[in-house]
């Protein structure tokens, strides 16, 4: 690329950035805060119910709550509701574990037509895969650091 082109591209980028519509950050944050909060509150209610009814240990209860929340995320994805929530809530429904369930179930549903092996199974982790790889890697690194210090 010549210097002229590079300059032209640079000034065009600046011009475009000045015209790009800006998202309403406050409104988006409020949506994310409240929807994320509701999801977490539901999680807490499930946790308390399981703990008081079935008398599991605290750790077991956490694991079961996680399972329930994953089921809810997957179920709402399956009936076509989670994408509508996600459109409004953004990170509010993306970050909780229900969002993680959504990122696995959505491609699994989408690629069912390509078969259960190369479609569902192969594409299932196309969105969640990077989260798993870097999530697990980070936890291993932090574990090592914790062990040393």
């Amino acid at each position, binding site marked *: 690329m010549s210097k002229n082109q590079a300059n*032209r*591209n*640079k000034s*065009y*980028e600046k*011009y*475009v950035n000045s*015209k*790009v*519509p*800006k*998202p309403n950050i406050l409104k988006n944050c409020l949506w994310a805060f409240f929807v994320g909060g509701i999801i977490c509150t539901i999680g807490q209610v499930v946790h308390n119910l399981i703990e008081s009814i079935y008398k599991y240990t605290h750790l077991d209860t956490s694991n079961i709550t996680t399972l329930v929340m994953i089921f809810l995320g997957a179920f709402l*994805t*399956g009936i*076509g509701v*989670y*994408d509508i*929530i*996600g*459109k409004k*809530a*953004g990170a509010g*429904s*993306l970050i909780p574990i229900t*969002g993680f369930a*959504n*990122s696995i*179930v*959505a*491609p699994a*549903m*989408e*690629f069912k*037509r390509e078969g259960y092996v190369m479609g569902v199974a192969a594409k299932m982790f196309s*969105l969640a895969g990077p989260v798993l790889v870097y999530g697990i890697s980070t936890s291993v690194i932090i574990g090592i650091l914790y062990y040393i210090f």
Partner: protein
Amino acid sequence: MAIKKIGSQTIKLFNPPSIISTSTIVGPKEGDGPLSKYFDTILQDDLYGEDSWEKAESKFIEEAVKSALSKVRLNLSDMDYLIGGDLLNQLMSTSFAARSLQIPFFGIYGACSNSTEAMSLAAMLIDGGYADKIATTASSHFSSAERQYRFPLESGNQRPLTSQWTVTGAGTTILSSNGEGPYITHVTTGKVVDFGIKDAANMGAAMAPSAVDTIKTHLNDTGFKPEDYDIIITGDLGILGHEIAMEMLEKEGYNMSNVFKDCGIEIFDNERQDTHCGGSGCASSAVVFSGYLYEQLKAKKINKILLVATGALLSPTSSLQGESIPSIAHAVTIESKLRN
């Protein structure tokens, strides 16, 4: 010698082919938009009774070609060529439609510029004496495009404000060496233009410079002025891209204010239908021309238009490899009657 070529990139057709028929088929969202009364078929089910989005899109093309032919009582066997393209890998929907249509087939890829690319090539083939009747098609499907270029449909993510909504539908035109118009009189073939935009969710900004380049070249080559046209309409620049293209052209001294429009803006009611920056996809220019504009030309409510379909030539691979978005725009002049 290229006796029909004028200027640097334009062809003036000696025997302008006539667009004798068109047909359109669109999905429910497009059917709910402001141009709904101009479409031939509005589907309630965007799977069209098929079991995949790609097959549905293929059926759009098949049915649109058949319907355009039946309007002028022609058969598939009367067609010399089928020229068309879509957005999918290996032109899946067009190739599979061509498998059942059984017309000699040229598959083309110019992304969303397919509609005018097909019309350009068809017009030149007919003017050159290589064919009498040609069908052109361009199609796209929101759901088949999403799964190839973006995210699974049920994924709970937010679309950026600059993104556009892929039009679900197919538009077809039937070109003939004789007929009563509207006629394709000029063809300006675009060059690939790239101003370095890398954001695949902002294709309007990526494509605007290519539309500007082709429109400027067309006006220089032909000597036409913007006011010679009733409408100069781009394919799918969307709200942001249209604004940018307009400003760029006005900066160059062209007064576009009364004539410049965009199919991607016309097809949806953006406020109500929540598309963000308007429509996109091959079907955007194809159905807006074959539906709305063709009818206006036929009724002589407008007499001369420049249709400039714009294509962003990115691929999912090129985006991942950090490449910018190359773009192209092809223009055709369509006139309701011939003047000497």
